[in-house]
């Protein structure tokens, strides 16, 4: 993929798609992964990165990012309580609870 038209600060970015550390990425994404899955996932990710690298040839000098299709300012509202949720109602979907708490394995011994 030609990068000759790319003159912005993006040039200093690392070369993508090479030696993707899927074990590290999985840890960041909190996904357990075994060695076999990791090697397949690395191959998938490399082909995805090849696909998305096509956009590196587009000249974006002086273009402002568009983070949102409406490109507007977030709407604000008065800082007032509008809902009175019942915790018990929402806890019906929880795997393990005790009173108002959600139970997880012990974090501090």
């Amino acid at each position, binding site marked *: 993929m030609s990068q000759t038209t790319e003159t912005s600060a993006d040039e200093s970015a690392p070369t993508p798609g090479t030696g*993707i550390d899927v074990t590290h990425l999985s840890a960041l994404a909190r*996904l*357990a992964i075994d060695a076999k899955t990791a090697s397949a*996932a690395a191959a998938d990710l490399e082909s995805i990165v090849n696909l*998305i690298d096509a956009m590196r040839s587009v000249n974006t000098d002086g273009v*402002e990012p568009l983070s949102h299709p409406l490109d507007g300012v977030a709407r604000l509202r008065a800082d007032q309580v509008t809902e009175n949720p019942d915790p018990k109602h929402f806890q019906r979907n929880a795997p393990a609870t005790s009173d108002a708490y959600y139970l997880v*394995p012990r974090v501090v011994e």
Partner: protein
Amino acid sequence: MTELHSLRDMSLALAQGKVSSVELTQEHLVRVKTLDASLNSFITLTEDEALAHAAAADGLRAKGDSRPTLGLPMAHKDIFCTNGVLTTAGSKMLSNFVAPYDATVVSKFADAGMVSIGKTNMDEFAMGSSNETSYFGAVANPWDVTRVPGGSSGGSAAAVAAGLVAGATGTDTGGSIRQPAALCGITGLKPTYGRVSRFGMIAFASSLDQAGPMTRDAEDAALMLSVMAGFDAKDSTSANRDDAWLNAIIHGGIADLDRPLVIGLPDQYYENGSNQASIDLARQELEQLGHSFKRVSLPHTDAAIPVYYVLASAEASTNLSRYDGVRFGHRCDNPTSLQDLYERSREEGFGAEVKRRILTGTYTLSVGYFDAYYLKAQKIRRLIAQDFDTAFAEVDLLLTPTSPTPAFKQGPLNDDPVAM
């Protein structure tokens, strides 16, 4: 029900007292039970609730309520939260999740008196173009059950195409209403972002997700859009616009055009061997109606898919971080630590395509790559938006193929992460 194909047909029959909502709803339920075994377009059928709502609609009609939407059966994509009803997003992660509240879209249809008969199948977390990534099994295309219905709103598309319901909701992030509608030969509409509330719609990529109608024709799509669209204070990206024309559609249908249209044909959309004969037929029909055509250019079209993939995966990896096995959703057995609980619950709860997108998003958002991918994609998104602004300064609308091919066979594209 053979003579009642569209929502409008049913609305008229209800108004004339030829059929009751309970009768219509029963016929729909029987049809699903009889025909859906070969399609798998529904995940959940809410028979008791549907019949109760239909009876309530008949009660209102007896007291003089004459709203055109009252008592019309429909279905919701299983991405919309439905209070007290299983809401799975096609995922093992949410296979036990009973939503504690209604999405705004669901409330609006209920308030209009429409009767939901159940929840339709979909690609897991709306990630897919073939409806083969659902934890609840693939959906078949009713025109040829060896072919896919498209995705991710493939259950809604197949259900409407098979006449199980005349209208269903869908959601579209990168084509998930439009593509399955095309592959099943029905009408699908992705409204302008902000037009339909996202409150209670399970998030995939928040800057792109938008809900819309899937129906048998444009007039039914307008009827459904008029119910589901509108400002919602509960959605921070809901657009506050004049909705008078939407309300007018409910009673008057689609207004006649006051002038012929100039229709744009983007060069880049006709380069990849699409079925030109089908497009030509549509063009001829539009020309006979008095409309004219003009070639336009959308020069950044090639970048659209990479940009979509970067933005959607980045937002998905962020949105799906909420599924942690703690407050709701799948939890692994016997976690040894909090970290183990997170990692195994997510590994077991998510399917392969979802994990692929989470890892892609995690990669493009990670230190050192953010500017090269996420920020770069957002800049190109502005260029793409400017392409459309330029085109729409010259034309009223664009005519394009929705998909480069008709419905493809189930199976072969599954192993290639970029083929679809």
